[in-house]
């Protein structure tokens, strides 16, 4: 409830919210710190922090590489959790963890959720945990009051969407297209039909992600989605121009 409410409050003031994504420890925690600062200062409404995993099955090349490089530099789950706590303490926007299920499973579901909740983390995106596999996780999320973010996709039937909506909290992550993160999406008629189906299936806010690159993409989403998600784009930006390029980029998006 907490996350959904926070987002709804923000929605009152803006056409569309912005959620961004970073991979923890890539290129370094210091860079993460600087990037997040610039994001928050330039009006980002929510940030998903990806705890790197050695098998990022649902990610595209940019994020895969970021996961690997972060791990290669020695990033530990413990470092990520400490960093997450620090960010939630520092900034007044909602932070989410994005990671693959094994990271949580291995740590211990309850321990992980408890710690995240105590740190002030608001939600979880776990791309390889459909609700059928996540019974205990969903129960614990309820217990610790963190929002499990469920995912709609263009291949989801109406029936599947309402089923997913029943488990989701905070918002629904609508994947813009088939495929992995990082490639450009088309926002044509098919996409609009898809988004209408999403809207019908849930009353939760809708975030749209995968391949959103620029102001134009975001413009196209206004009125149809509540949140635009910028993922690989900022990672590439940091790689190419350094953390200080992030602020101006974000500022120019809306």
């Amino acid at each position, binding site marked *: 409830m907490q996350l959904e409410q926070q987002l709804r409050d923000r929605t009152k003031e803006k056409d569309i919210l912005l959620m961004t994504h970073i991979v923890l420890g890539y290129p370094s925690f210091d860079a993460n710190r600087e990037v997040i600062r610039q994001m928050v200062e330039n009006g980002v409404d929510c940030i998903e922090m990806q705890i790197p995993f050695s098998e990022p099955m649902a990610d595209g090349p940019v994020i895969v590489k970021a996961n690997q490089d972060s791990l290669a530099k020695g990033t530990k*789950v413990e470092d990520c959790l400490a960093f997450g706590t620090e960010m939630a303490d520092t900034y007044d926007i909602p932070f989410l963890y994005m990671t693959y*299920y094994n990271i949580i*499973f291995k740590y211990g579901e309850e321990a992980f959720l408890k710690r995240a909740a105590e740190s002030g983390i608001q939600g979880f995106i776990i791309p*390889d945990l459909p609700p059928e596999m996540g019974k205990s996780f969903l129960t614990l999320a309820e217990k610790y009051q963190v929002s499990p973010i469920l995912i709609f996709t263009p291949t989801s039937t109406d029936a599947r969407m309402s089923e997913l909506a029943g488990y989701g909290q905070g918002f629904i992550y609508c994947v813009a297209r*088939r495929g992995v993160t990082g490639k450009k999406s088309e926002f044509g008629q098919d996409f609009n039909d898809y988004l209408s189906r999403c809207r019908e299936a849930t009353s939760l806010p809708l975030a749209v992600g995968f391949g959103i690159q620029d102001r134009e993409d975001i413009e196209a989403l206004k009125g149809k989605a509540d949140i635009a998600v910028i993922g690989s784009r900022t990672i590439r930006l940091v790689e190419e121009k350094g953390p200080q390029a992030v602020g101006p980029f974000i500022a120019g998006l809306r």
Partner: protein
Amino acid sequence: MNQDKNGFFGKWGGAYIPEVLYQTFQELKEEYARCRQDPAFWEEYLSLMSTYSCRPTPLTHAENLSDYFGGAQIYIKREDLNHTGAHKANNVMGQGLLVKRMGKKRVIAETGAGQHGVATATMAAKFGLECTIYMGEEDVMRQRPNVFWMEKLGATVVTVKDGSRTLKDAINEAFRDWVTNVDDTHYVFGTACGPAPFPEMVSWFQSIIGIEAAEQIMRYYGKMPTKVYACVGGGSNAMGIFKRFLGEKDVELIGVEAGGHGADSGAHAIRLSTPDASPGVAQGYKTMFLQDDDGQMKQTHSVAAGLDYVGVSPILTDLWENKQVRFESATDSEVMEALDLTMKKEGIIPALESAHAFAGAYREVGKLSPDEAIIINQSGRGDKDIFTIAHAFEDPSWKEFIIGRGKGYSSK
């Protein structure tokens, strides 16, 4: 040994898949369920395998080896005589029939040793499907001949340069393709791992091995074997031969994992017979993985590319937990010795993967009594491994030959 409705075997298995694949898995599960209920499907499968591959594959009585060890009678199930040279054909052809029923036009697959890639490319040629094979860069380097054949069979081979650049990374990349091209593409998973229904489905197709072997040992030997040995990579050939014998009271089933440089070396692929592995969830399923405390997958090592994998079939993990299958491991050097002995004594060349099963059996067979019999599953043939085997034996004339050839090519 059937999966529950969420695809679990005991605590293991499941389908930890990206949501975009949900629908396709529903369709796959339904079609698979229909096939299992339809005796005509199995008939079609048998007919395909007996006209295109060489089923039933023989069960060979290894008289010289039996004499040599002086213990039980050794029988070898000859999956090496399948078309494309390994048991992988059984699974791939079965999935091919399924793909035809589902009307998909394209298949993708991961491959480690290259065997499954060649088998899938072969099936795609036979069924007129487009085909893309994902293979880790390291495996491409050690198994180049298989890459050549896949390409010649009309498949596109994509070299995967992420992660450890081996099998698991190829699997990840195949999943990435699948989520992108889910509508017209089927992912032909190569072993009894991955998200449900793959572990059960692949085991079902492979179960033809054990069905034949049981019938054959009764015919040739007159009673059930005391022990059945199989190597365990992902677990498909092991499940294939074990399944039929699981109900048999006096048959012990032994899975032999890749001991690499030794169980204590850190350089191995032992998931069940050492404490190095722990429960985890990756590549779509829950099993024992070789992973660190954070849940990051570790590097594995085996002389046999096909066993060089971090996970293992959830069905085997369940059978291990319930003590229905015993797990052992064999080191690279034990395997090379077993290979050598098998060639010299019987004129049979097991694949490096299969040679693990032989090594495991040789360790024990001498202690059995001559009125017992054992079956070793020879999952594949070794002549596909010439580069690895000749290298591992450090054969000097092989090296000279390759040097000469290399010079010939560079000078042009």
